[in-house]
């Protein structure tokens, strides 16, 4: 009543004013958005009157008003602007998109729109312009830092490399850590096959198959209650992705072209003082200062390079073995090493280049009366930062159509096709890996001549592989008995051999088709039917020529054909009712079935019959050297769900969700039921008239979701046996009569689902006329009955057993703050801050001490009772009760027999600060991201110490007294030695090669010394864009021309050495915080042009 009265009063006043100043005139102008595009249908109203109009198709308007009156321009999704009428009769207005608009909508798990102000969960939304600014090829990486509660870590800087995505903390051990992805109603795969290995290539993430330009918005459903309708499978939250669709109105054409230059962003320093070889003392020479050069030797403990005579090496030109490089240079056995050149920089420049990516994307939106269509094509063509074959080409086509068949029946069709071709590079703990061979290479070995012909005892080996551990190249002999060539090859690949001679090809073809029909039963009840299929084939081919390291010694060819399909049928009824003046209700009831098929067929051949040609097919080896493997799974779920919402007195919001389902992987679990409830109070109405608070809502929810085990975990099986030691040597059963043994993993018919129970409470507020908004959520989730292959005493006949054994808790806080600091016509400045803190703990492990997720025997990331999830465990020094080292006879620490927990790879907190400044046609934005308190095991550093390559090993000291080294050699007082003095508690000792080669280096039994604080802060994005003024482009028929330059990862602040800690050796796996010769990260400089017609 009060409201009505004030409105009448205003009208009355306006009427009076109207009479007083009857200087009526016609005002006209254009309303455009920040991109310069006209805004048709914007509301133009004279403040305090009913006089108003809306803009036409070109954003133009015209109305009559009086000088001194205020015109209010508004449009849904944009900030409202007020202009006082002065003398000019033309008023042109630019409306800014309003990120925190009153009408901001998020998508629910079913993809239905919901006003954020009415949402009872912590769902947040990332919009198209935020994604576009990132300049990333991959959608996943582009999400980094965009909202609280979301952790994105890329696998490496390699082209097409995938990323790890985690909402809140890790909940599960065997299940996927990726959220459920719902793309226009389709449940799609974000698989990353082979993600858990410490070697191989940097894997892709299937979500990155999408063209980021097609994305309209991504709603991040973090909480269990929001995801609850999906039950099993929604335990890690849901990403609901909406792609662009044709809009009503005239045809729009958008074209984007960009160039991106990638540069390695962190590199290792290598010592340049000492050459390849071993310490003099090993020859019994009492000299600890330098060493003796030895070719083909692994270590860099040789002589001082600067002390050499210089000039070419003295060689034995009469030798029966020599190597002729492709460029004609001939290498003979070295008799004396004279060359005093340091090749670190020369070698580095031979392998690294600036990566280059070109992106072109075109989209067209058009509509007729009954239908609208969106079509796009795109191509991303990227070459990596290595000279050689490292690339990633992604082409996409998309067609979305909405057709209104009748008033009641509507169809929504979303389709897309992606094609990926990529050439990848071996990485990690892998003798064929790029970084392993590159970083271990001594300073005095020039690896540029990596390929040529070896001549040895009258036998010629073409395509010979030359590396620092075999400087005359690989050679072969012919074994007449087996009819094959046997190669002798360098222990490590020359990095140029890795990038130029080895092929790791990958092609992916992927279709996603999702038709949806919607039928309105009545004004308030509609029926929706959805089907979707996501199908891809991922073909991986490896070709390692004979003469490669390790498994590639005699040639290796493998092909992996992986296909996955995800089919989803979903029917639901959606209804709303006004039960009374005070109570309204909406409900949804639905039924969903889901079918996943995965099939992998692999073949591998070794010991090539004809190794002299690149042969990308099977049939190049004897049958004993040809193996094949197959793995198929098919899983299904079938469930019904219901959601009921009540709104009481426009203030109280209530929601309840229930899902009941059957899961094929749990045949004995019966019907699985997941309940969830939420409540919220919108107290803004109580604060009407407050100048400070413009909106306020508190909310609380409780939800349950689940995770199913991997397929076939309920039974123990028998399979053909191959047994190996942890060093890789072993016996392949198929060559020994194919015996069949019982699996070492015991099935469990009594398995039930893992259940995640979460409650969260939160607050959403806006202040100062919606200029500042603040949201915060506290959540506490417990994963019960977490399934794992629980390690058991091997003496009971099994190595492990599937059990509902673990309990994991994650508790955390998420805060998002944003504000429009300045909001003027020509100038605006926005800021946003996000903060995330999550604390995880494995509360129970059913008595088992430790379960390794990923890593090595010596150091791994795993789960253990009382420890944070993914805790690092490894070898430690033996200590007494006071915590002091237990020293050996020489005064050095000793390794403890048992492993211990040595680090926590989870950050204490993560945060982001974003800002954007717009001045006229210029726009500048920046995003700073921070991760604090995360540990990493820097295995690379340890190994570089071992090899004498790390700069720490290239120091010289003078013994202050007689010193003993770790081997017991005595370095007499006053003499110079390579190393330094250190006191471990038993008086000074000499830390030198003997210590680095044992428990002071990366191959010792102790890994605690290589744990580092990998906290980082980075300038994730910096972007400047400029739109050409309208007056220049309109005559050309263009509606917008925008240029932008973006820098990605431009600055990185971290104490960690040698690599970007936003990488992970084991990719998108659950094991975190491991670094071991993984391919490096990159920073990028991106230039983009956007044209709109």
């Amino acid at each position, binding site marked *: 009543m009060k409201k009505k009265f004030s409105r009448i009063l205003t009208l009355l006043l306006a009427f009076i004013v109207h009479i007083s100043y009857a200087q009526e005139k016609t005002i006209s102008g254009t309303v455009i958005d920040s991109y310069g595009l006209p805004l048709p249908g914007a509301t133009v109203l004279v403040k305090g009157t009913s006089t108003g109009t809306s803009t036409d198709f070109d954003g133009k308007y015209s109305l009559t008003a009086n000088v001194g009156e205020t015109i209010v321009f508004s449009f849904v999704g944009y900030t409202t602007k007020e202009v006082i009428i002065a003398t000019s009769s033309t008023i042109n207005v630019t409306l800014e998109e309003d990120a925190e608009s009153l009408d901001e909508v998020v998508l629910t798990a079913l993809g239905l729109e919901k006003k954020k102000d009415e949402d009872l969960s912590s769902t947040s939304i990332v919009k198209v312009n935020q994604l576009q600014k990132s300049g990333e090829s991959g959608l996943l990486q582009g999400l980094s830092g965009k909202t609280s509660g979301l952790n994105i870590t890329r696998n490496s800087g390699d082209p097409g490399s995938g990323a790890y995505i985690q909402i809140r903390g890790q909940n599960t051990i065997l299940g996927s850590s990726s959220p459920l992805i719902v793309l226009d109603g389709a449940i799609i795969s974000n698989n990353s096959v082979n993600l858990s290995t410490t070697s191989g290539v940097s894997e892709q993430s299937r979500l990155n198959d999408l063209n980021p330009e097609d994305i309209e918005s991504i709603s991040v459903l973090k909480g269990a209650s929001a995801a609850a309708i999906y039950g099993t499978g929604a335990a890690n939250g849901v990403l609901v992705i909406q792609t662009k669709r044709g809009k009503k109105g005239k045809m729009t054409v958008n074209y984007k072209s960009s160039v991106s230059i990638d540069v390695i962003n962190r590199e290792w320093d290598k010592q340049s003082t000492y050459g390849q070889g071993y310490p003099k003392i090993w020859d019994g020479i009492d000299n600890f200062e330098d060493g003796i050069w030895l070719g083909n030797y692994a270590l860099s403990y040789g002589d001082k390079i600067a002390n050499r005579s210089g000039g070419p090496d003295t060689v034995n030109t009469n030798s029966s073995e020599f190597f002729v490089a492709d460029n004609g240079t001939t290498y003979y056995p070295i008799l004396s090493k004279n060359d005093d050149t340091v090749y670190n920089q020369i070698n580095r420049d031979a392998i690294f280049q600036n990566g280059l990516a070109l992106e072109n994307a075109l989209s067209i939106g058009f509509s007729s009366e009954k239908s609208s269509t969106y079509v796009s094509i795109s191509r991303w063509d990227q070459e990596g930062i290595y000279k050689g074959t490292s690339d990633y080409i992604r082409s996409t086509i998309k067609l979305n159509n909405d057709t209104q068949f009748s008033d009641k029946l509507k169809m929504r069709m979303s389709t897309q096709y992606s094609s990926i071709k990529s050439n990848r590079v071996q990485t990690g703990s892998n003798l064929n890996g790029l970084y392993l061979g590159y970083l271990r290479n001594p300073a005095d070995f020039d690896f540029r001549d990596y390929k040529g012909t070896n001549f040895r005892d009258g036998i010629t080996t073409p395509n010979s592989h030359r590396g620092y551990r075999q400087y005359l190249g690989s050679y072969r002999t012919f074994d007449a008995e087996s009819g094959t060539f046997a190669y002798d090859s360098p222990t490590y690949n020359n990095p140029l051999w890795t990038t130029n001679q080895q092929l790791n090809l990958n092609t992916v073809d992927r279709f996603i088709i999702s038709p949806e029909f919607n039928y309105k039963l009545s004004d308030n009840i509609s029926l929706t039917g959805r089907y979707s299929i996501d199908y891809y084939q991922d073909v991986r081919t490896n070709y390692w020529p004979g003469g490669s390291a390790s498994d590639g*010694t005699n040639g290796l060819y493998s092909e992996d054909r992986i296909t996955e399909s995800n089919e989803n049928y979903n029917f639901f009824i959606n209804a709303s009712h006004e039960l009374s003046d005070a109570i309204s209700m909406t409900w949804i009831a639905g039924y969903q079935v889901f079918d996943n098929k995965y099939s992998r067929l692999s073949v591998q051949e070794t010991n090539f019959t004809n190794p002299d040609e690149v042969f990308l097919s099977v049939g190049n080896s004897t049958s004993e050297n040809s193996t094949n493997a197959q793995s198929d799974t098919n899983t299904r779920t079938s469930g*019904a769900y219901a959601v009921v919402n009540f709104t009481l007195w426009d203030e109280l919001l209530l929601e309840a969700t229930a899902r009941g389902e*059957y899961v094929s992987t749990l045949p004995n679990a019966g019907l699985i039921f997941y309940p969830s409830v939420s409540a919220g109070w919108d107290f803004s109405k109580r604060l009407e008239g407050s100048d400070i608070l413009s909106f306020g809502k508190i909310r609380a929810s409780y939800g349950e979701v689940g995770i199913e085990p991997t397929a076939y975990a309920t039974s123990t099986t*028998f399979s053909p046996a191959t*047994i190996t*030691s942890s060093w890789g040597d072993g016996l392949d059963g198929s060559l020994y009569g194919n015996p069949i043994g019982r699996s070492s993993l015991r099935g469990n018919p009594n398995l039930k689902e893992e259940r995640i129970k979460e409650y969260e409470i939160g607050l959403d507020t806006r202040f100062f006329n919606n200029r500042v908004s603040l949201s915060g959520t506290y959540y506490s989730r417990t994963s019960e009955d977490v399934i794992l292959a629980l390690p058991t005493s091997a*003496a009971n006949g099994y190595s492990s057993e599937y059990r509902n054994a673990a309990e994991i808790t994650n508790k955390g806080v998420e805060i998002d703050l944003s504000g429009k600091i300045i909001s003027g016509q020509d100038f605006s400045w926005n800021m946003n801050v996000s903060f995330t803190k999550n604390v995880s703990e494995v509360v129970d492990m059913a008595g088992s001490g430790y379960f390794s997720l990923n890593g090595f025997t010596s150091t791994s990331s795993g789960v253990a009772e009382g420890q944070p999830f993914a805790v690092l465990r490894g070898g430690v020094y033996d200590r007494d009760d006071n915590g002091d080292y237990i020293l050996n*006879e020489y005064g050095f620490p000793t*390794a403890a027999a048992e492993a211990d927990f040595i680090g926590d790879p989870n950050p204490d907190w993560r945060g982001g600060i974003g800002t954007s400044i717009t001045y006229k046609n210029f726009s500048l934005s920046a995003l700073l991201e921070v991760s604090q308190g995360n540990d990493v095991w820097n295995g690379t550093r340890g190994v570089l110490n071992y090899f004498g390559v790390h700069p720490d090993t290239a120091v010289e000291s003078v013994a202050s007294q007689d010193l003993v080294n770790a081997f017991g050699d005595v370095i007499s007082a006053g003499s110079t030695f390579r190393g330094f003095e250190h006191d471990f508690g038993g008086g000074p000792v000499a830390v030198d090669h003997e210590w680095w080669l044992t428990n002071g280096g990366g191959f010792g039994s102790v890994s605690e010394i290589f744990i580092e604080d990998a906290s980082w802060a980075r300038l994730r994005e910096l972007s400047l864009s400029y739109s050409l003024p309208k007056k220049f482009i309109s005559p050309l028929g263009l509606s917008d021309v925008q240029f932008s330059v973006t820098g990605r990862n431009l600055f990185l602040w971290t104490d960690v050495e040698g690599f970007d800690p936003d990488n992970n050796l084991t990719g998108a796996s659950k094991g975190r915080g491991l670094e071991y010769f993984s391919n490096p990260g990159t920073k990028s400089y991106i230039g983009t042009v956007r044209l709109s017609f």
Partner: protein
Amino acid sequence: MRKIFKKHTILAILLSVTLACENYTDNYNQDPNAFGNAAPELVIGQAQLAWILLSSSNSARYAGIFMNQFTGSDRQYITVNSYSVTASEFDDMWDDAYVDGIAQADITVDAALENENLKLAGVALITKAVLLAEVAALWGDVPFTEANDADQFYTPAYDSQSAVFAGVQDLLDTAIDYVEDEPASLYAGNRLSSTATWAEIAHSLKARYYLITKEYDLALTEAQNGISTLDGSLVSLHTSSTLSENLYYQFIVDQRDGYLTADNSYLFQLLDSTDNVDRLLETPGDTERAAYYFSESGGTDVLNTTDGVFAETSSFNLISYYETKLIEAEAAIREGQTTIAQDALNSVRDELALEYDAMFPQTTSTGDTLLQEILEEKYITLIGELQPYHDIRRTNNLLGVPAKTGTEIPQRFLYPQNEIDTNPNVPSPLPGLYDVTEVNQ
């Protein structure tokens, strides 16, 4: 009212659809990639592969470094060479023995007995006995009576080392009954080879384990019933195909180039005539033998993987004629039967002379000298095998093999980290590397 009726109908339909669709998910959990069961004739093979692995893979390499036959020259093996080892390094050896070996042998025995195939049961019992005995010899007290019965004993208790050896003797006795006079080719596939009978092999094994428990009289009798010809030795078979090569070859050539060498090892020095470490029993033929054992690569003395003991297709002894004879020799001298001891050692020397086409003069020594000569011959002849490591610990290093570091040779393998993590019955406090096992106390 109509509306409500409509709504209820829809819900009712939905509900019935849901319930009907339980069978949408039914019977989708049959693993298409694996079998539900397998005949015991197929399972025995895996247990035998585990026997080969335990005899010549990582456990043998560690033992070889511990007893200074070999040298750990690179990476992690340098640390092993300094006897600095951790519990997790023993995980795979233990797991391979129990899960891939003992458990599969047990499955074979049970199924074979059910099929009344006693011979197969006997062959499987021999395999099981060897694996258990070697595990006990390396680790000391280990699970035995409660082993491999996950339903009843999820965390099996440990039996004393002596109880395990006693049990092993019983298993072998049963096996001897079962196998009758079947040749060792029965159920050996292309994995194992021997011209002896399974019973002779079992007797040789009994002799080996009586020796370990210092029951020399019994060892003597069993050895005399054991393998009696050179090609009666039970060996593993290897080919040039990937993962069927000699396991030492795989490690040294394919997997870890340079890790395991003979660089300055005691065994190398014993055979090398140019240094001042000499054999007790002068043996000119060791020059030929050294060429078979060792070669040189880049200035380092390495193990011969081209045309020698660890070549790609070289067979590896699981229990040999030489070992049987040397057990007989040692047991005899300890029982005071010098002539038998001399004859046994000399028959080994004669065979070696033929094998290397070189001079292996006979011994005439007696008493402690003869005992040391026997142990020395065994240390050299059984290169890469576990037995000389057991001998050194049993005899309190009578041979005087120098330790790699310090003065002591490790007395045992460490209990694996996985076992410490999962089995509360693991001995407490955990014994250290130099703590003597029960039978050697």
